């Protein structure tokens, strides 16, 4: 194994750069080092101006999404040795405006998220405050996968639909809506319907499936979207065929 590896980083500082450029750094190649450790080495020892987000460095806070050699990755869970002998190219996530260097603007997702009402809407069956809802492990399996989303945005970065249509509410937001729709305790599916079944909701998706490939937590947002299309289609057919009271 060589002792060092070159990391090529996409740089953009709006206050001084008129356009982006690549900077290249040589960092130690250690078998335990994630791409993030390489960036931290650059930041601490070589160039304090490099900006990126990170926090937990254990793949759970969702801060450190980047494009590594062309693919959307969590930089804390992507290892340098997998790219040896290098170079490794690190860019910001695609499909987002860049604030600076590897830091992207994710305000769009933060604004869309509440529109799908990703919280539990309680129904008539809510138990007393000193008791829990009963929910069997089998019932939990129905939505559990969709509850694993860490909001890392890699799926948006991978999504060709979002690239063309920024109004699309996107894979993670839909998966999170489904996380509640499919929860036996929730009674909010109706409230979420207008947004999910709109043109910018599931129907915008052309089922490319890149989101599920990119997802580091196996959430399968593409599956969530497909499943909702089915629900919405069935519902639409019912709406056509049945009188109001019987829907």
């Amino acid at each position, binding site marked *: 194994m060589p002792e060092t590896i070159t990391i090529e980083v996409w740089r953009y500082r709006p*206050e001084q750069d008129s356009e982006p450029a690549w900077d290249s750094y040589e960092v130690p190649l250690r078998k335990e080092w994630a791409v993030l450790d390489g960036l931290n080495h650059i930041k601490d020892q070589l160039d304090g101006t490099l900006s990126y987000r990170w926090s937990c460095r*254990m793949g*759970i806070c969702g801060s450190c999404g980047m494009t590594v050699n062309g693919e959307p990755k969590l930089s804390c869970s992507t290892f340098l040795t997998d790219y040896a002998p290098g170079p490794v190219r690190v860019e910001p996530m695609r499909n987002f405006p860049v604030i600076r260097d590897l830091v992207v603007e994710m305000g769009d997702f933060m604004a869309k998220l509440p529109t799908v009402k990703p*919280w539990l809407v309680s129904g008539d069956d809510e138990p007393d405050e000193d008791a*829990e809802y009963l929910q069997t492990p089998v019932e939990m399996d129905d939505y559990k996968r969709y509850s694993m989303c860490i909001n890392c945005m890699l799926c948006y970065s991978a999504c060709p639909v979002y690239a063309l249509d920024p109004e699309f509410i996107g894979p993670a937001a839909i998966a999170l809506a489904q996380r509640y729709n499919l929860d036996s305790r929730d009674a909010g599916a109706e409230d979420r319907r207008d947004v999910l079944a709109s043109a910018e909701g599931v129907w915008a998706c052309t089922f490319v499936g890149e989101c599920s490939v990119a997802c580091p937590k196996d959430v399968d947002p593409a599956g969530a979207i497909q499943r909702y299309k089915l629900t919405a289609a069935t519902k639409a057919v019912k709406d056509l065929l049945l009188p109001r009271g019987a829907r």
Partner: protein
Amino acid sequence: MGAWHNVVIIGGGGAGLRAAIAVAEANPKLTVAIVSKVYPMRSHTVSAEGGAAAVAGDDDSMDEHAYDTVSGSDWLCDQDAVEAFVVEARKEMLRLEHWGCPWSREQDGRIAVRAFGGMKKKRTWFAADKTGFHLLHTLFQTALSYTDIVRYDEWFVTKLLVHDGRVRGVVAVELATGRVETIVADAVIVCTGGCGRVFPFTTNANIKTGDGMAVAYQAGAPLKDMEFVQYHPTGLPFTGILITEAARAEGGRLLNKDGYRYLQDYDLGQPTDAPVLRSMELGPRDRLSQAFVHEMAKGRTAETEAGHVVHLDLRHLGEKLIDERLPFVRELCASYQNIDPVHELVPVRPVIHYMMGGIHTDINGATPMTGLYAAGEVACVSINGANRLGSNSLPELLVFGARAGRAVAEFVATVPGAATAPVLAQGRDEEHRLERELSERQRSDGERIADIRTEMQETMEAGAGIYRDEASLTKALDKLSELKTRFAHASMDDASRTFNTELIAMLELSGMLDVASCIVASGLRREESRGAHQRTDFPDRNDEKYLAHSVISRKPDGEWRVEYLPVTITRWPPGERVYGR
């Protein structure tokens, strides 16, 4: 001009979000803002793995949870706070269930509970081994439904504004633009979490730099029991990533390099096949971490590139149980250690994990400063005393986050109006200071921020680690004061305003140097051994002199003063901590 809200909460982790919801519920007319240096769902609560304790089964009782907590704390907690805590913990966990938290379940649909270290009954609620993740996302998503809660995402608080003895707001920098804003408030709740990053080897995320402790201390609020820092016995070497105690609760065993269950040599009971509560691997964290040091001294730990380790053996648990109950452990071992715990031993060593001490508050989160409240890991109520029990922290941030929120809502309703001009003037001063920092640190001859930070962390490990003595602590204190002087001249490469993370790192380091000094100074004064504070020169607990909280505060001349406050004892007089017997 500045912004204004009735209540400003610093921090969008578990404690901050819970407090915000409590304020909104207590009085929907109040405006509440959460100011957080990361998006709330990135907060460190997200990393908590094992679970959250609250009485669940019929075989358990509030008194037993309280007793485990009191004895676990080596009697340094306040028992009135613990009694309130155990009762409200259960309510809070059920509340969270109603909000949608996917707690793991029994076959019949009831909440499942697991064993945890130092707990005599199974009472730890869990969501597989991603409890903190689910808890935080549930709180965050629920908070989204309260449209009146305003958020300042990715804003870094640099200072508390104090006028006429009252806390009146904060100054914060917006990361994206570098804009400095004065945010005026009737009351501030600090929910900024712990400070593990003052040490080199920690389970704590990069953001856990003790900022809230630092700004409170600088504003004149006292910090309590700062000498008590928890080492968790099982972190992965090199990364410090936590392998949750739940792994031992499910039956994992600790082996020395000879494959021997060494804990039996340290008064923690005898090895059995099935795990026994409050015994062996399920002893408290302080005792297990100390046992590691002795084992190392005896030459019975294994040596690796990343230092000495012992082994956690999960192989006998089998793939099915591991995948069902410890999937994250398997994922972390695979990604970061390149091993599969289903078939291999997991190397582990003690790692800095949790801060028992923090901003001194009463049982409602109020500090001695009017208008200033604190909750969560940043606060010291204290239910944790000299050693926190695993899985008591998540319920703590719910219970005391909610309490602080309610107390603030009441306080704000009664507080008289006050002129904002003097606080806005302070805000401008702070803005100028930050501008000076940005321009004056652009020099080529100064030391790097990262180098000073590394030296501080090494100083803390060497001087205030699992075992300490007068000489090590004194040396550390001297070194820290040298580092403060050097820090004043440290330089930065980055002069821009847009997302300047070097500026943030500099501000964090400035606070950490204060927090580190408080830890060491408090440790130097406490001439006894209790819980996580072990003095080799004073190996015994001394209840006559030190059954008391240490309280450190800053004097106007910048020096500190350590005083002691009595511990509240309601029903459990100090006794021996017995495990495995």
